[in-house]
């Protein structure tokens, strides 16, 4: 039987207290080990099963949540295979991120009813249950078939089809060039292909971005407030959350832990973390806080970098500007109720968005809202517009994108075109999975309609 390791969210797809991600299959524990680190320091693969492990979930080497992982050993599990179930702190966003981490770590997205199917195949449920599962899978298969055509909105479907067609055209040119070397077909060169791949890469990135931005509206985004000590980060946090969440003093270094709050800014739900002021410090406890802040900064989807507008920029400020370089960030020149002393030029050169605001009076909050909306383009976000509707669809796009990037990389390294072609094939496969067509015949058909070839 199919012994891929699969993963899916096992709790209802709705906001709730706890979200469970189930990973099942031969390599379930290896996959889980890649994303979950028990505090005990042991790996899950060493676990005997029927054990709960407390630890942290990591995505791209960044901690994203604290969680409990239950390990079940085959055959004593629901599916009869090795199973890891990660229970995380709910919230659709975190749950989905954990799932994505599992998928990136080598699990395949589970088909509808697949856990149950495996449970049956491994003799864990009886015949009657199996019958109903089969009807269920059959029905969901029908839905999935309909979904391939319908839930992919017309515009999106056209867009994806457009990308697929552009790659199919390349593959057809390559196929004709390779299969008919004696016919006078124009040479297909890597430099001709590169712009097509790059354009496909951009389109897919845009499609994925749009999905992620839609998700920003529905699931919320991860934001972090950073700044050197005592520029007013905690005051800002309190302004945004509407109540005294962080302890505010004028003593630099008061906030040492990361304080988190869910706030609503315009249309966007943000999970904002207030962090310790980032500065060079000798204080051990404060230093731990500073490091936490830095790590938090690296994985945030949005950075709110706070500067004290009433003072000239310090070396610590400059360091923070550097940290923000590759991030989506907004510079906040706080204390706009006082005269501006900071060098706006430096800030404006470093940040695409900057806002003057007074955290204590609330002045400038509207500008901040606007800047956030600009970055996530949520003002353009139309809940009815074309968007991928599931993580599975996203995964197809991500796979296609990865293959296209591999093709681009192969071209740039000077690898022969037969290998480039195989990358392009994989991209087509992934895209046609979304539209429900098959790849190789598409290329062959295209060769014969476009090229005059043959003896």
């Amino acid at each position, binding site marked *: *039987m*199919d*012994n*891929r390791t699969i993963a899916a969210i096992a709790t209802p797809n709705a906001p709730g207290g706890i979200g469970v991600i189930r990973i099942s299959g031969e390599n379930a524990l290896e996959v889980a080990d890649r994303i979950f680190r028990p505090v005990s320091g042991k790996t899950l693969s060493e676990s005997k099963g029927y054990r709960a492990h407390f630890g942290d979930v990591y995505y791209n080497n960044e901690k994203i949540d604290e969680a409990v992982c239950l390990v079940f050993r085959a055959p004593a599990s629901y599916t009869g295979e090795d199973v890891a179930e990660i229970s995380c702190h709910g919230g659709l966003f975190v749950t989905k991120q954990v799932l994505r981490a599992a998928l990136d770590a080598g699990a395949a997205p589970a*088909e*509808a*009813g*697949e856990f149950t*199917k495996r449970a*049956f*195949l491994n003799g864990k449920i009886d*015949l009657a249950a*199996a*019958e109903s*599962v*089969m*009807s269920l*899978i*059959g*029905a*969901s*298969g*029908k839905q*999935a*078939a309909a979904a391939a055509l319908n839930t992919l909105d017309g515009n999106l479907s056209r867009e994806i089809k457009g990308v697929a067609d552009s790659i199919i055209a390349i*593959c057809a040119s*390559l*196929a004709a*060039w*390779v*299969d*008919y*070397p*004696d*016919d*006078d077909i124009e040479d297909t060169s890597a430099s001709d292909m590169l712009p097509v791949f790059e354009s496909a890469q951009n389109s897919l990135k845009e499609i994925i971005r749009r999905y992620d931005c839609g998700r920003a509206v529905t699931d919320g985004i991860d934001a972090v407030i950073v700044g050197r000590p005592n520029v007013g980060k905690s005051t800002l946090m309190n302004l945004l959350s509407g109540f005294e969440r962080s302890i505010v003093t004028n003593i630099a270094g008061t906030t040492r832990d990361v304080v988190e709050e869910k706030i609503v800014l315009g249309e966007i739900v943000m999970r904002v973390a207030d962090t310790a002021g980032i500065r060079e410090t000798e204080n051990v406890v404060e230093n731990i806080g500073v490091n936490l802040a830095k790590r938090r900064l690296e994985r945030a989807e949005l950075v709110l970098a706070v500067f004290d507008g009433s003072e000239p920029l310090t070396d610590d400020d400059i360091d923070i500007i550097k940290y923000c370089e590759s991030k989506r960030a907004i510079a906040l020149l706080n204390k706009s109720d006082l005269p501006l002393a900071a060098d706006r030029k430096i800030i404006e050169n470093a940040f695409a968005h900057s806002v003057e605001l007074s955290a204590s009076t609330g002045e400038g909050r509207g500008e901040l809202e606007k800047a956030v909306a600009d970055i996530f383009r949520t003002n353009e976000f139309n809940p009815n517009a074309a968007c991928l509707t599931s993580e599975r669809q996203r995964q197809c796009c991500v796979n296609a994108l990865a293959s296209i990037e591999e093709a681009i990389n192969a071209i740039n*390294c*000077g*690898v*022969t*075109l*037969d*290998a480039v*072609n*195989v*990358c392009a*094939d*994989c991209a087509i496969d992934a895209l046609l999975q979304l539209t429900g067509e*098959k*790849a*190789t*015949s598409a*290329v*062959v058909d295209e*060769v*014969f309609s476009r090229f*005059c*070839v*043959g*003896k």
Partner: protein
Amino acid sequence: MEYISENFDIAVIGAGHAGIEAGLAAARLGCKTAVFTINLDWVGNMPCNPSIGGTSKGHLVREIDALGGEMGIAADRNTLQNRMLNLGKGPAVHSLRAQIDRRGYCDYMKFVLEKQENLYLRQAEITDIRRDGDEWILKTRLEALHRVKAVIIATGTFLAGKIFIGDISYESGPDGMFPSVELAQSLKNLGVLTRRFKTGTPPRINRRSVDIESLEPQYGDEKITHFSYVTDFEVRNTEPCYITYTGEETKKIILDNLHRSPLYSGKIDGVGPRYCPSIEDKIVRFSEKERHQIFVEPCGANTDEMYLQGVSSSLPEDVQLKIVRSIPGLENAEFLRTAYAIEYDCVDPLTLRQTLEFKDFDGLYGAGQFNGSSGYEEAAAQGLVAGMNAALKIKGKEPVILDRTTSYIGTLIDDLVTKGCSDPYRMMTSRSEYRLILRQDNADRRLTEIGYKAGLISEERYNKFLKKLELIAEERERVENLSIPKTPEIDAMLVSRGTSALEKGLKMIDLLRRPQVNYEALTPFDKNRPDLPDDVFEQVEIDIKYEGYLKRQQMQINDLRRLEVKRLPNDLDYNEITGLRLEAIEKLGKIRPETVGQASRISGVSPADISVLLIYLERNGING
């Protein structure tokens, strides 16, 4: 009057490329095998292009050879010109092609069949085929009756063959041979559903009438590669090919006479191949193209006959002559043979198993054009598989099924029996999703083990093959461990090849990973290199250079194999399976796939249907 003649284990009808390999494989596996042909002088005839191999077809020939077939050696023996196509486009798409001395090839193959133990070559037309219990009775034109356990039909274009030239048509096989008309009717009576396909061939002209000097010559490779892994004799280039082009005048002649083409006036019902369009087709469909390329190819060592690749046509003879004479260099061309289109009976390959046995007729097999394919190499590949499996079945052994992850042969057969074909099926590299692994250079590494286990590869050849694998492994280990120091000389070499200089010394394997670097370039820096055959270095280098891509393809292959080993019973009633979608029930019922993997490739069968199928199999204890 009918008389009882000799009995055989296996009878092969036809001694073309499919029939030859089928007969040889069956006889070599120890079955008493008869090969019947309408004309003994044209065993292994090439009624169309006088060449073997070409893109992806070259892969097929090497695979046939790796499995112990004859085509590769026969081609090497009779080569006029040898070229590796697609050099510079990557090893996956390198393909060998040879111009062949057509007469020499026929003589060679006839002789091989004559000498083959257990094989009985006969000039006889089979006119009737009927069942007798578990066995078959074949009747010849002279009314001899042969009782056999299995029959392999490899009738090519002979089966109810009909030739079209302009408004003239007549029943005929290729090259003026008799067609096989009664057998076609006999198969219909048996209940074998046939259909009409069409193909065609260009005119042949006399070399003395060609202005050779004005044509652009195309020569063979200086470094010759053999088709066969066992060829140890010298192969030389003796004849070039020539290139010319059609022009405006050609186009005008064709357009003025289009109404006289049986294709365009609707006289031909047969479906023609897309990859092999007639010149009139090309002009009509690609009217914007100013010129079409024509190859003038030698047909043999002892003849002045030349083949005009690109001028396939079914227009009347007078128009053909005008067309040819409108082509620069061919103004005075004298015809030796006129181009024709030929229509013939073939089966829908969806009615065949992966062994090429009919699902509904035990012991009846099809191979070659009869199965809806096209091309000598495609035919030979199927002949080998059909012959081998017919013999294994008679011996009570497990069949050898080459799935599509193993070979182009497997891909060809899987496509035919799973997807079917609506026009004659030609192999193309783009048909294989695993083409980085299925290369022509490693056919032996992929298949010789299988050929050996089946009994088609001799002990001696197998031991040589094992030795080669050993050398590859040793050489790989050597380059993994060999450090190459940073020197001005190596840096200069690297930079001159467009890659970066060394930061520090590197292992040789890491240098070989660079696309710009190869064994040859490293010779001065690898002083103690052992003296190994070129193909050992080639394998090591390709393995290293494409490692990442190969691994990825291997993963895809492993995924597919899991479904490929799950077998589906032939009598499975898909209507009984709860949860299958209607379209899937219909398609699965019609095609009756033999494995879950095959089922998953049928268009209209979704992943959910496959899940349902797996559950059903498991529930009913059908474990394949």
